C-alpha cells in the first residue's frame, strides 16, 4: 500500500471538516472491506493522499424509529442489520439481503453506508431499499440534505456525494416500515458470490389488490433501478399468480443487463422475470404469514 495521511474523525461534522480541509484526493474509510482492497490494488492515479477514518463516529451508528421512519445509521454493519430486533420483525427482507453479503468477517466490518456509497450495481443492500422508497441523508459543509435513494447513484461506482460530503443515514419512510417485502439474489455459488441479478419486491395489500407495488433490480443496469412498467401494471390489480408472472416479464423491459464473464444478458433477462415473480410471491407469503398470527 502507498503512503497516505490518516485522520480519525470524532463524529460526522468532524469528518466533513476533515474532508473539506483535505479534498479532493481524500478517501473516506468506514468498514474498509472495499476501500482497503482498492488502496492495495487500484491504479496509482486513484490513490488518495489522505484517508479519513469515520469508523469511530458514533453519531453515524444506530437503528431506531424516528418521526420520519426507521433510521439506519450509515455505519451500521451488515451483521447489526441481521441481528436488529426491529428489522427482523418489520423488514426481514433487509436481513436476508444483508446475509447474502460476503461472509461473517466482512459482514462484521462492512457497513450499509459503505455498500451504498461504493455504488457497485450488484450491491445487495440496494434493491430492498429501493423497493421501500428509502431516503438517504447526506451531510456536507452547508448542512444536511435528503434525497430518494434512487437519485443517490449516478452510475457504476458513482454517487451524487461531493468531495466533502458523507452519507449519514438511510431512512425507511414510516408508512413502509412493515410493508411486505422480499429479497432474492441469484449468484453462481452460495458463499461470497456477486449477484448475477438481485431483486426486491414490496407492496401493501389492499383487499385483494396490489397497493404501492415497488420493485428494485440490481446488477442489471448502471445503478440499482426500479421497474416502473411492472409497478404500473400491478397497481390496483388483483393479487394473482398470473399478475405476478406478468409483472416479472414486464420488469425485464426496465433493465439493461450486460454480457460479461459471469453471465449473458439473455440469461440475466430470464432471471429478472423469474426472480421478480418469486419476490412478489415471497412478499405475499410474508403478508399471509403475518395475517395468520
Amino acid at each position, binding site marked *: *500500500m*502507498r*503512503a*497516505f*495521511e*490518516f485522520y*480519525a474523525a470524532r463524529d460526522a461534522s468532524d469528518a466533513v471538516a476533515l474532508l473539506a480541509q483535505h479534498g479532493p484526493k481524500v478517501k473516506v*474509510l468506514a*468498514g*474498509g*472491506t472495499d476501500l*482497503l*482492497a482498492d*488502496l*492495495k*490494488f487500484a491504479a496509482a492515479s486513484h490513490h488518495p493522499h489522505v*484517508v479519513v*477514518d469515520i*469508523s469511530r463516529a458514533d453519531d453515524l451508528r444506530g437503528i431506531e424509529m424516528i418521526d420520519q421512519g426507521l433510521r439506519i445509521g450509515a455505519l451500521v454493519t451488515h*451483521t447489526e442489520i441481521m441481528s436488529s430486533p426491529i428489522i427482523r420483525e418489520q423488514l426481514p427482507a433487509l436481513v436476508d439481503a444483508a446475509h447474502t453479503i*460476503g*461472509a*461473517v*468477517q*466482512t459482514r*462484521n*466490518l462492512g457497513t450499509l453506508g459503505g455498500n451504498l456509497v461504493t455504488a457497485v450495481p450488484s450491491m445487495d443492500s440496494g434493491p430492498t431499499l429501493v423497493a421501500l422508497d428509502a431516503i438517504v441523508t447526506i451531510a456536507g459543509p452547508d448542512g444536511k440534505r435528503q434525497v430518494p435513494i434512487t437519485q443517490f447513484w449516478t452510475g457504476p461506482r458513482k454517487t451524487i456525494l461531493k468531495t466533502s460530503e458523507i452519507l449519514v443515514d438511510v431512512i425507511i419512510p414510516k408508512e413502509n416500515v412493515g410493508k411486505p417485502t422480499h429479497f432474492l439474489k441469484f449468484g453462481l455459488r*452460495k*458463499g*461470497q458470490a456477486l449477484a448475477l441479478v438481485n431483486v426486491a419486491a414490496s407492496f401493501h395489500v389492499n383487499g385483494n389488490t396490489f397497493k404501492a407495488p415497488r420493485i428494485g433490480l440490481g446488477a442489471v443496469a448502471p445503478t440499482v433501478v426500479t421497474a416502473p412498467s411492472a409497478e404500473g401494471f400491478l397497481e390496483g390489480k388483483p393479487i394473482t399468480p398470473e399478475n405476478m408472472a406478468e409483472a416479472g416479464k414486464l420488469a425485464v423491459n426496465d433493465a439493461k443487463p450486460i454480457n460479461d464473464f459471469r453471465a449473458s444478458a439473455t440469461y440475466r433477462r430470464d432471471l429478472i422475470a423469474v426472480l421478480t415473480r418469486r419476490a412478489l410471491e415471497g412478499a405475499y407469503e410474508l403478508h399471509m404469514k403475518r395475517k395468520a398470527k
Partner: protein
Amino acid sequence: MVSVSLTINGEKRDAEVPSETTLLKLLRESFNLTGAKLGCDVGDCGACTVIVDGKLVNSCLMLAGQADGRDVLTIEGLATADNLHPIQRVFEEKGSLQCGFCGPGVIMSAKWLLDQTPNPSVPEIRDALSGNLCRCTGYTKMIEAIQTIARDRATQ
C-alpha cells in the same frame, strides 16, 4: 505514522507504524504474531481472521490505526503453555487440517461461532466458515470437529 496502543491476547502493546499498515501486518511484523496469515489480502480467504472487540474480522481489511484502543484476540491467545485450546485439540485429533495454512483463521471462526452459538447446526457451521477458504480438506472434518466440541461442552 500512527501510534497505536491496543490489547493483544490480554497484553497491552504499543507501536508506531506507517499509516498504511494493516492490523495483519502490525501483528505479524511489529509483534511477531505470525499465526494470522497473509492470503488473498482482500478479505476473501479468511487466513488473516482474528477477533477484535468480540467480532470476527479480516485483519487484512483493518488499518492499524483503526485497531487503536481495541482488544484483539489471535490464534496465539488460545493455547496455554501446557495445553492446546480444546478446539485446537479436537481439530488435531480429527485430522481436520492438512497443510494448515487456513487453520488459524478457521479455528478463530470456530471459536467465535461456539461463543455465539453453543450448539450450532450444520448450516450454521457452514455459514460461519464461509469466509474461510480451505483448498485441502473439503471442510467435512472441520464441521465434524466443531460438532464434537459442541457435544463435549454440552456433556461437561
